[in-house]
């Protein structure tokens, strides 16, 4: 599977051209994925009245949709690993559209749970993961900008969908509105069609096969060829774990950077969304009228819209790109500080200042969220990584706001909720900062010893111009994206490593500058 990559040398991420069209497609997909469950709440009052259910019962629709969207991560990762981004996004778009049209005929609330919640949520997850994956395939040097632009889809779509949903509700009722939303979701198919696969259809070709090859005695997946058969195991009956590791790269759990990222993010998500949800009620509690409270959210969204591409540009600069994890940790920690200071804000302008700060840091975190993951694991394993990350993040994302709500009920004071969220995020930021510092140290050490090894090889292999070559070698290594350093770090960390030549060959395959 991966060996084919070495047969087409000199080709790699485009970093421009059609890549920007792909970014636009990802913009649409990601926008729908994140904004749709939130914008759907506009219809809830009407549906609640129609079916005569309580507010918590109708709120389940959104919760189920979000839960399935996050939990469906591994499924879409597997599909992307197998078939590539384009078919999965198109399927996701069709699923979403059909689910909404089916939901418009719902005769009770359970139909809505099934159609909108489960099928719609699954469709959205088929939109989200592949969009993120394909950016990593198309971009290397300008990847932070591409990520920032694509993630900006979420606030843009939220700002557009919310008033649009209100208009559709008034004009067509909730059933008619659902039908039209279904049609709009079919546009995700257009986004998918734009995601032209690299090298005409073969997925993840420049990448090496999953590193579990070493552990599974070189059972090559997909071909069904087992080079060294394991005892009683036949061609057809491979263990569940092996099958899983074929499609989903579970060796990521041995990846130091991945574990750090996962732990930090899971901690962070406990306090990430709650302040956003409670901002408007808090503003009303402080005496602002409804329109002022709504204007706070609008200000937040507009700042968010600008902050995401802005952060992408910032992250792309040479200085930041090499140590992008620090920027991410800083953004998370700053988020925490912002929330801790929120109860001090007084009056309308104090809250506006808070909303603007919050918008900036929220945008920063969102823009860097997947860029950092890509930076840590590299584009080849990113699709598996993002699937694992989203399914594990599912829990804090869903549990966070209700816990914040429970704190609110318990103390009756919004300040405690903000303190909790701020403390959680500050801790997460500091944790990420220190652990990434340690990680970078380890990677630098690994790189230095690897360079020494290469230098030695050069000296023994060729005469003359050695010094120059090794210098150029160093320069090339410097110029490469940090992900390569991370990748080389991984090789050191893994318990089972292939022999040196295999490593070097894989390094070459991945080397984009050749």
């Amino acid at each position, binding site marked *: 599977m991966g060996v084919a990559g070495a047969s087409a040398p000199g*080709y790699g991420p485009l970093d421009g051209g059609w890549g920007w069209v792909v970014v636009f497609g990802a913009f649409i997909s990601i926008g729908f994925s994140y904004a749709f469950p939130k914008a759907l709440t506009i219809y809830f009052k009407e549906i609640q009245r129609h079916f005569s259910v309580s507010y918590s019962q109708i709120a389940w629709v959104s919760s189920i949709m979000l839960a399935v969207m996050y939990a469906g991560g591994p499924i879409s990762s597997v599909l992307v690993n197998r078939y590539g981004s384009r078919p999965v996004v198109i399927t996701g778009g069709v699923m979403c559209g059909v689910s909404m049209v089916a939901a418009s005929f719902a005769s009770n609330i359970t139909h809505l749970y099934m159609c909108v919640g489960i099928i719609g949520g699954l469709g959205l997850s088929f939109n989200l993961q592949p969009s993120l994956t394909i950016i990593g395939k198309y971009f290397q040097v300008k990847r932070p900008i591409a990520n920032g632009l694509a993630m900006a889809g979420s606030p843009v779509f939220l700002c557009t969908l919310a008033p649009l949903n209100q208009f559709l509700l008034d004009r067509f*009722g909730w059933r*008619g509105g659902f039908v*039209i939303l279904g049609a709009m979701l079919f546009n995700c198919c257009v986004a998918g069609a734009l995601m032209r696969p690299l*090298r005409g259809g073969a997925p993840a070709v420049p990448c090496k096969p999953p590193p579990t090859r070493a552990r599974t005695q070189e059972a090559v997946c997909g071909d069904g060829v087992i080079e060294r058969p394991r005892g009683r195991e036949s061609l057809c009956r491979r263990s569940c774990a092996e099958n899983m590791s074929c499609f989903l790269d579970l060796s990521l759990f041995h990846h130091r950077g991945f574990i750090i990222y996962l732990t930090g993010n899971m901690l962070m998500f406990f306090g990430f969304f709650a302040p956003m949800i409670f901002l408007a009620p808090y503003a009303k509690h402080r005496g602002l009228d409804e329109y002022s409270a709504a204007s706070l959210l609008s200000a937040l969204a507009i700042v968010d819209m600008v902050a995401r591409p802005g952060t992408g540009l910032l992250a792309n600069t040479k200085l930041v790109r090499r140590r992008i994890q620090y920027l991410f940790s800083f953004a998370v920690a700053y988020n925490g500080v912002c929330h801790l200071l929120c109860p001090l804000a007084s009056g309308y302008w104090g809250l506006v200042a808070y909303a603007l700060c919050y918008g900036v840091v929220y945008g920063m975190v969102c823009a860097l969220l997947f860029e950092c993951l890509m930076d840590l694991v590299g584009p080849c394993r990113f699709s598996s990584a993002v699937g694992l990350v989203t399914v594990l993040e599912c829990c804090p994302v869903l549990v966070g706001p209700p816990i914040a709500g429970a704190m609110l009920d318990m103390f009756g004071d919004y300040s405690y909720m903000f303190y909790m969220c701020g403390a959680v995020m500050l801790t997460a930021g500091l944790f990420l900062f220190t652990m990434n510092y340690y990680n970078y140290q380890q990677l630098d050490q690994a790189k230095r010893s690897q360079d020494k090894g290469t230098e030695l090889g050069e000296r023994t292999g060729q005469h003359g111009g050695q010094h120059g070559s090794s210098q*150029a070698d160093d320069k*090339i290594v410097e110029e490469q994206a940090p992900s390569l350093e991370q990748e080389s770090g991984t090789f050191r960390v893994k318990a089972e490593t292939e022999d040196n030549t295999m490593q*070097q060959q894989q390094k070459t395959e991945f080397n984009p*500058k050749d």
Partner: protein
Amino acid sequence: MEVNMRLMWGFIALLFCFHQAAASAVAKIQADPSSVINQTSALLSCNLTGVPPVKGSYWSRNGKLLEKSKSDAISDYTSYHIPKIDSHSAGLYTCVFMTNPEVEENIEVKMAPHVSAYKHSENSNENDKASLVCVSHSYPLPTDWKWYKLGDVKTAIVNGTKNYMIRSTDNSSTLYIENLDINADMGDYECAGENELGRHADKIHLRVRSRLAALWPFLGIVAEVIILVTIIFIYEKRRKPDEVNDGSAPLKSNAATNHKDKNVRQRNSN
């Protein structure tokens, strides 16, 4: 004997005096006017007789205390001025003197009803149910509610006929229309409330959305999606013969290091 009789009569007279005194201690309020009917403004006043000590006084309307009318003045006279009598200020006024026990008197301020629609424009779907609501906050509350369908001819709606149902309470009336028909039921409706002093009416516009109204935008958007996807795929197919590897290009490495790159690669692959 005569002395005893005189004592007894004196005693009885004394008792009678006490009784009279006690009787004249019963407080009485003279309210003026006794009721207000169909006036633009009024001055309500209460006069307390029977003189027990007065701690203060206040007014209330329909049982709710009027904050501005509260007075701590020790007086047996209190008044309340209503500059403009409208549906908000009409009601059952009560002047209360804070004696022990408290005494009060009612003055009714009546006027013709004011009826308003809860929502002036209602939207509903075909074959669905619609409910049109009218409310009234006047005094006295309407005793009679009537609904009409406006059109070329103003027709009265009778409860129970066709698909109509009228449910009225003291201060509101609701017209339910089942199984909406887009041709017959769309239009203007009038609700009228009547009490002893007059009647008032308000209009509601009912819009019935056709079941298929959403179908045309849906088909339009789906057509747009299909066209765009087709264009994208055709464009890609046509470009394919021109490019060996669509979507990727030879990387432009620095000319200076180009040679070195190749060297590096060769070394590494050994």
